[in-house]
């Protein structure tokens, strides 16, 4: 190293290098314990899916108006984040747009001594959108898979103009990402060229400004872009509507979940009961998702 021979004449440099060595060594010696979560009163924290944040907040607003004294705090960060916090005990309820993985369920069991409780609170259709100037109006699931795995690189291969496709995707912390990966890509990996953006709103924004762009996201977020119809198995185009999402003919529909654990306070359970009752389901419609029967 070039700085070494001159260290003696520069005490501060020697000092900071010593500090650096100390920094490297200290972790080997340390092994601090971890703090536990704190208890809460009539306060329920709901965390998780970015897709469900709007829905969760609308639920919270309506519920708090009807039940003064209750505080429901809703935050996003991604389904995985919410589930991780449910495991850590920093969230009472996790909102998730994907089903919980087995290892996550095992962690809940380990942390609380009881299995996690899964509730479907709404249904959502993931829609695919392109720039308004793009003439492509329909895509089959195979074509979508080709585009997102990088095999289909040009719009002309799927009936569009001669233009390289720019793929927009979500960060891998997103439940929508996982849903798309499983239901469209069949578990395959996204193309390395897929640009990942934080939040569905950012994807919508990018597609809005990019003639060659294609993006996907929850149905509640679709303005300023053009939705693409998805071809069903028989080749007919299915639009994402309440009927097609409820009966499953729209290929990209999914349930939205709430997860509770044995440690979720009573207030959280009352909230869940309200959310699945007609009042809560009315809010679902209002926000643009689809109620569960």
């Amino acid at each position, binding site marked *: 190293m070039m*700085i070494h021979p*001159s260290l003696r004449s*520069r005490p*501060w*440099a020697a000092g*900071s*290098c010593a*500090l*650096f060595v*100390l*920094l*490297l060594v*200290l*972790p*080997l010696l*340390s092994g601090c314990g971890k703090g536990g979560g704190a208890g809460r009163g009539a306060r329920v924290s709901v965390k998780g899916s970015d897709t469900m944040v709007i829905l969760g907040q609308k639920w919270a607003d309506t519920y708090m108006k009807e039940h003064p004294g209750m505080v429901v705090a809703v935050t996003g*960060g*991604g389904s*995985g*984040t919410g589930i*991780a916090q449910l*495991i*850590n005990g920093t969230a009472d309820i996790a909102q998730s747009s994907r089903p919980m993985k087995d*290892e*996550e369920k095992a*962690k809940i069991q380990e942390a609380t001594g009881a299995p996690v409780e899964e509730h479907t609170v709404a249904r959502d259709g993931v829609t695919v959108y392109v720039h308004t100037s793009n003439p492509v109006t329909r895509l089959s699931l195979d074509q979508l898979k080709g585009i997102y795995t990088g095999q289909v690189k040009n719009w002309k291969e799927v009936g569009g103009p001669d233009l*390289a496709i*720019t793929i927009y995707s979500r*960060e*891998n*912390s*997103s439940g929508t*990402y*996982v849903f798309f*990966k499983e239901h469209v890509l069949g*578990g395959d*990996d996204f193309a*390395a*060229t*897929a*640009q*990942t*953006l*934080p939040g569905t709103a*950012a994807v919508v*924004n*990018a597609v809005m*400004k*990019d003639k*060659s*762009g294609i993006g996907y996201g929850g149905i509640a977020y679709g303005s300023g872009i053009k939705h693409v119809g998805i071809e069903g198995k028989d080749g007919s185009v299915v639009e994402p509507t309440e009927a097609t999402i409820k009966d499953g003919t729209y290929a990209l529909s999914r349930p939205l979940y709430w997860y509770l654990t044995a440690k979720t306070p009573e207030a959280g359970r009352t909230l869940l009961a309200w959310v699945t009752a007609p009042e809560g389901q009315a809010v679902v419609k209002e926000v643009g998702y689809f109620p569960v029967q």
Partner: protein
Amino acid sequence: VIPPPLLARAVGNGRRRIDRLAEVAIAVSALLTVGGIVLIFVFVFREAMPVLFDQATMAEANLRKFFTLGPWQPVSDHPRYSFVPLLVGSLKATVIAVVTAVPIAVLAALFTAEFAPRQAREFLKPVVELLAGIPSVVLGFFALMVLASLLQAVTGSPTRLNAFNAGLALGFSIIPVVYSVSEDALRAVPRSYREASLALGASSWQTAFQVTLPAAWAGIFAAVMLGVGRAVGETMIVLMASGNAAITSLSPYDSIRTMSATIAAELAEVVQHSPHYSTLFFIGSMLFAITFVLNVLAGLMVDRMRRHLAGA
């Protein structure tokens, strides 16, 4: 009545006690600052350690995999953790930022230190330093919404969000620090240098470029190092403006995924203490080490210049 000598001694004792107290207070503050940094690093490195020592983690994520060419695909049935696209991404963004920002910042510093009239100098420096106060998220937002469309129209690049866009925005964020430290370095060159040069018949242009600038080169190098350190670690701008696709290529018009943006985007999701989690912390340790080395280099250079000028 206390005799005057004793009184003086009592007052002296009191003063000494206050001195002592102040000394302790200052020492404690210094220790707290250093201690904070130490604790942060201890935490980051400890979380990264399984990558080096834990067999189960190493089966999936280890040093050899990190540094062999491959994709960055941590959420997959077959997770692959190659740092190569991330390193290339960080490097591309940093090089573009430095190449665009350093000439502007150094020339601006030269103008401020050598040519600007006094009022202009007193106005210029604080205003450029004020640039440093722009939150990086605002710069990133600007790059995402405005700069990207503008650059795509000019360069005709197929991807809107790319390394060039992110690098330019990053350049904005490092101009203030490079400018400010360079200006200080130029101002530190003794008047006698300039006077000697002018007395020998050199023009003020020749003096600035051939006398002052070379005399301050170590300080300017330090400024550049600090700028590079800031650019490597900057997160929000690249997260918003670069598209975040982990592509290994040399083209500035491809999207990039930097090390810092990867941590920001993925840390929220990972299962604690999974290989992915440890890998992200390992990237954090690497970033810490890189900026540490850059800062030490910058410090050494400033020191060198100071001693050089003092000895002359």
